[in-house]
């Protein structure tokens, strides 16, 4: 038979064993790329002189080179000149490359989101005597988060998929396990079907979370919800006025 269900079911758990590695890489890279991306974006937003140029070059470099070459260049290339990289485990190296790579995309998303908060609101805050810090933390960032959320979530789905490159330097993630299994059994069709299904399901799940988050954050700004304690306070005040 062309497609063996029994092999499919037998291999599924073996391939799935790589999932914690795949997800671990994704989560860690998401955290670090978000942090680095935020710093880069803020430096850019406040027009810190050198940072603006650095982000530009960094961004074009990352976007203009394939992820596989980035991993090879880092793990095999830089190992020649840096003992730090030489002593790195493949997992850490992949995590570092994924973080660095995605940070460029996230920085752009975040920068765009920060810019989307109009000058008028900034002027209003400053005219009232608010500090730049208050303006940034209380007005700009809350609005920017909402704008950036969908793009950042896409970036995370991309990270998840990018993690499949880890197999190229010998990591036993989902993809790595599939390579090993299929090399032994020659059942490529079944094995890679398993891989596709696993990635697809998780991308779908992340997409669903993304949608929920988006709906939630949209609802916050555009509806006229009366929060419980606000209502309580108002009632108390109306009461006071009556007395």
């Amino acid at each position, binding site marked *: 038979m062309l497609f063996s269900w029994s092999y499919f079911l037998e291999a599924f758990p073996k391939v799935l064993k790589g999932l914690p590695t795949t997800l671990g890489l994704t989560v860690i890279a998401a955290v670090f790329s978000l942090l680095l991306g935020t710093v880069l974006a803020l430096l850019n937003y406040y027009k810190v002189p050198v940072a603006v140029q650095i982000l530009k070059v960094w961004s074009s470099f990352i976007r203009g080179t394939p992820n596989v070459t980035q991993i090879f260049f880092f793990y095999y290339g830089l190992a020649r000149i840096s003992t730090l990289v030489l002593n790195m485990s493949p997992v850490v190296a992949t995590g570092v490359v994924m973080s660095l790579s995605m940070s460029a995309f996230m920085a752009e998303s975040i920068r765009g989101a920060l810019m989307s908060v109009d000058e008028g609101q900034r002027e*209003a*805050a400053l*005219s*009232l*005597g608010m*500090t730049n810090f208050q303006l940034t933390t209380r*007005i700009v960032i809350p609005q920017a988060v909402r704008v950036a959320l969908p793009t950042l979530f896409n970036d995370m789905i991309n990270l998840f998929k990018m993690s499949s490159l880890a197999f190229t330097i010998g990591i036993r993630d989902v993809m790595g396990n599939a390579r090993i299994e299929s090399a032994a059994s020659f059942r490529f069709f079944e094995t890679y079907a398993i891989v596709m299904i696993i990635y697809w399901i998780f991308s779908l799940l992340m997409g669903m979370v993304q949608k929920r988050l988006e709906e939630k954050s949209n609802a916050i*700004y555009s509806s*006229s919800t009366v929060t419980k304690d606000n209502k309580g306070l108002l009632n108390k005040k109306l009461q006071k006025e009556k007395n």
Partner: protein
Amino acid sequence: MVDVKNLSKTFDGTTEVLKEINLHVDKHDVVAILGPSGTGKSTLLRCLNYLCEPTTGVIRVGDVTVDAQNHTKQQVRDLRKQSAMVFQGYNLFKNKTALGNVMEALITVQGKGREEAEDIAIAQLKKVGMLDRKDFYPAKMSGGQQQRVAIARALAVNPNVLLFDEPTSALDPELVGEVLNTIRQLAEEQTSTMILVTHEIHFARNVANRIIFMEGGYIAADGTPQEIIDDPENPRLRQFLNLVGK
């Protein structure tokens, strides 16, 4: 209440938009600034709270004085606390409700507690007739409603001077009235000093006790509404009034 000495503003080192402006505004004065487009009305107003940094000159608002050529960030912030501005585009904080908008500076700038800030905010929203919309976000309010909330936000900080920069010119015609009425009511109370840039000549005539006509970066005429609008001497002023159809 406001003292401006030798105020000049040059953009990009070449275009001189304000030319040695001198201006004194008394407490409780309601001053309307009129003039053709591009003559520096907004720039003058924005210099009063340093949203626009003057090139030279000394500005005093309330009891804070700032010299364009020698000042600190702290002085600028102190100056800003003396006044509050109502903008043409409302400029409400989009991530805050009407109530949140009015409370914001009370908490962050004046360091008031939430309860007290909310008391003040509710009183101000009531004053502008927006209490029933207090939990609405700006996206869910009409332009006129947003502008009235913006006025409440400005009033809440209890400023020495209220600055209005064409507060109705972004509004649909049918919404202008509600905002003008709110401002008129404030002017009639005679509790705050107000400086407003407007193109509404009739409104200025009725509400202000002093009118300034700006032209090419200068104050070209300055006097009572009668002197400026009913009986203009300056030929440019007369031309302007004819043009806008007094």
